[in-house]
């Protein structure tokens, strides 16, 4: 009984760490335009819209985070093998991994932006100085939280994988969850803030991203501020729920029915999420209603008013 209570505590802590990691990961990637909306940031100067948005997308979020978390976990693992205190080892390992992220961000921004020289997009050195450190800070939180979570899973819950391998697995999953959940909010709601709310961006508007803020030109710190309100926390909840349910079903229900308890609970959780998804899908259809009724020509009326 005591073991299960301990396991539940570790599960909750790992879930909380994963939530923090997911939120920091999405905010970091949105400041660096590393998710799919990077295509619009890259396209804008080609359409004549010069901007001051940071763009470090030379790899997808999952492989990038797979690298950084595996690197942080590998270094922490090496420090622990040298009899270093685990907390200190994880902090040091994550800090060193963040330097790699900083080098990646710098070279990526310079390379991507310099390739737009023929469209007269300048490389802003002040952007490089101010944005890179902010993405590094967010990346440190994401990497530290994920490596700490992996360490807990191994040392307290007894997963057989070594720390660097588990870092790679959960780093890729972190990037997948963060990019899936956070990208639409950054891409549609922020880059195309001038477009109508409640509708997708028309393909004809591609590249026309918002470039001006309340005062002066918009930069990626403004985008990070915006993403941290919903896209980031939602990504955090997504990754936190994944880690929590994955551990919870194993820790609590594996002793039942010769191990099949964990499988049955897993199926039940998937079915519950199916019901939640279907409910909100129907709710959206009923609440927002169809866009256009064929008999009523809406567009000419709007144009005349």
């Amino acid at each position, binding site marked *: 009984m005591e073991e299960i209570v301990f396991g539940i505590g570790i599960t909750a802590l790992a879930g909380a760490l994963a939530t923090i990691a997911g939120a920091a990961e999405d905010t970091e990637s949105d400041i660096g335009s590393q998710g799919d909306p990077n295509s619009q940031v890259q396209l804008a100067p080609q359409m004549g819209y010069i901007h001051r948005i940071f763009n470090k997308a030379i790899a997808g979020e999952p492989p990038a985070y797979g690298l950084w978390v595996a690197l942080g976990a590998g270094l922490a693992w090496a420090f622990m093998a040298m009899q270093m205190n685990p907390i200190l080892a994880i902090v040091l390992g994550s800090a060193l991994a963040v330097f790699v992220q900083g080098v990646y961000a710098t070279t990526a921004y310079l390379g991507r932006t310099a390739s737009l020289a023929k469209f007269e997009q300048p490389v802003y050195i002040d952007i490089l100085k101010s944005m890179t450190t902010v993405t590094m800070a967010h990346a440190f939180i994401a990497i530290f939280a994920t490596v700490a979570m992996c360490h807990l899973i191994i040392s307290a819950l007894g997963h057989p994988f070594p720390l660097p391998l588990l870092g790679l*697995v959960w780093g890729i999953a972190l990037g997948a969850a963060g990019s899936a959940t956070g990208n639409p909010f950054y891409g549609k709601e922020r880059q195309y803030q001038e477009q109508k709310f409640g509708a997708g961006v028309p393909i004809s508007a591609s590249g026309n991203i918002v470039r001006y803020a309340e005062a002066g030109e918009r930069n990626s710190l403004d985008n990070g501020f915006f993403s941290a309100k919903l896209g980031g926390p939602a990504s955090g909840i997504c990754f936190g729920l994944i880690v929590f349910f994955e551990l919870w079903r194993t820790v609590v229900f594996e002793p039942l029915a010769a191990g099949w308890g964990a499988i049955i609970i897993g199926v039940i959780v998937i079915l519950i999420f199916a019901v939640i998804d279907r409910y909100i899908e129907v709710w959206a259809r009923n609440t927002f209603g169809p866009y256009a009724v064929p008999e009523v020509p809406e567009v000419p009326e709007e144009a005349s008013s």
Partner: protein
Amino acid sequence: MSALGGPAQTAGFQPPTGMGIAVSIILIIVALALAFFLIQMAGLLALVGIVIGGVLIGFGVHFVPVGGAPAAMGQAPGIATGVAMLAAGAGLAGLFGGAWAAPLGFPLALAGGAIGGGLLMAITCTMVNVIYIFGMGIPSASGKVDKDPITGDTFPEFKSQGTEGHGLPFISWVGGVIGGALGGLGGTLIYLELLEVYQAQVLVSASIAVSLAGVFAIGMFLMNAVLAAYNITGTIEGPHDPKFKRFPRAIIASATASAVAGIFAIALFEVLMVFIESNLMGAL
């Protein structure tokens, strides 16, 4: 006809070529023969398991609804990330669960892997719809079909102007979960087969066997996911998308690639022993 003079590319079914099938069959037979030659029946069975695992991953990736950059702007349905990326995330989460359940037996570990992958996709797909609906006020609409094959919901009137659709209709949600489960199942199967091979080696400790099997399973997972992504070319909505019909070609490619990569993984220690022996001979 493409600009390079290749065959015309159609959105739907694209059959594998005769030459491709013939080369694939030869490579698979050679790999199986090598596996039998190196570790007898155990090697042959392990390679068959690895090939089945690779095929499950390649097939599973076709179910995952991926919209890429257009999905991030609400211009196309699906999850706003890359095909291989998302499938890898789900499959590796499945591998995490499967490896954990490995001491409890083969069926339980496989089921654990499948549920792990399915669970990641179920939560991710639900959160994608949460963001679309509550963050952006956009309902789900498919761009490829007018009616959801499961729920019967109609889509044309819920598609905003100038887009191909948006969000994740229920059929895409179900496709995502099936894809994640197949990926987790395939990844775990490769891991278990390799673990068995490495554990039989006298030189290898238990922790090294787990690490090696894990590394090779992740590598083969990424290989098969990327192969399938090339077959899909960009985005796919799920099992109702016409591109889904291209899966036979991915199955053949995945089986061949897994057989060739698998034989290297299985023969790792045999090759290592040859090097050690030749070095010893040189030293003497």
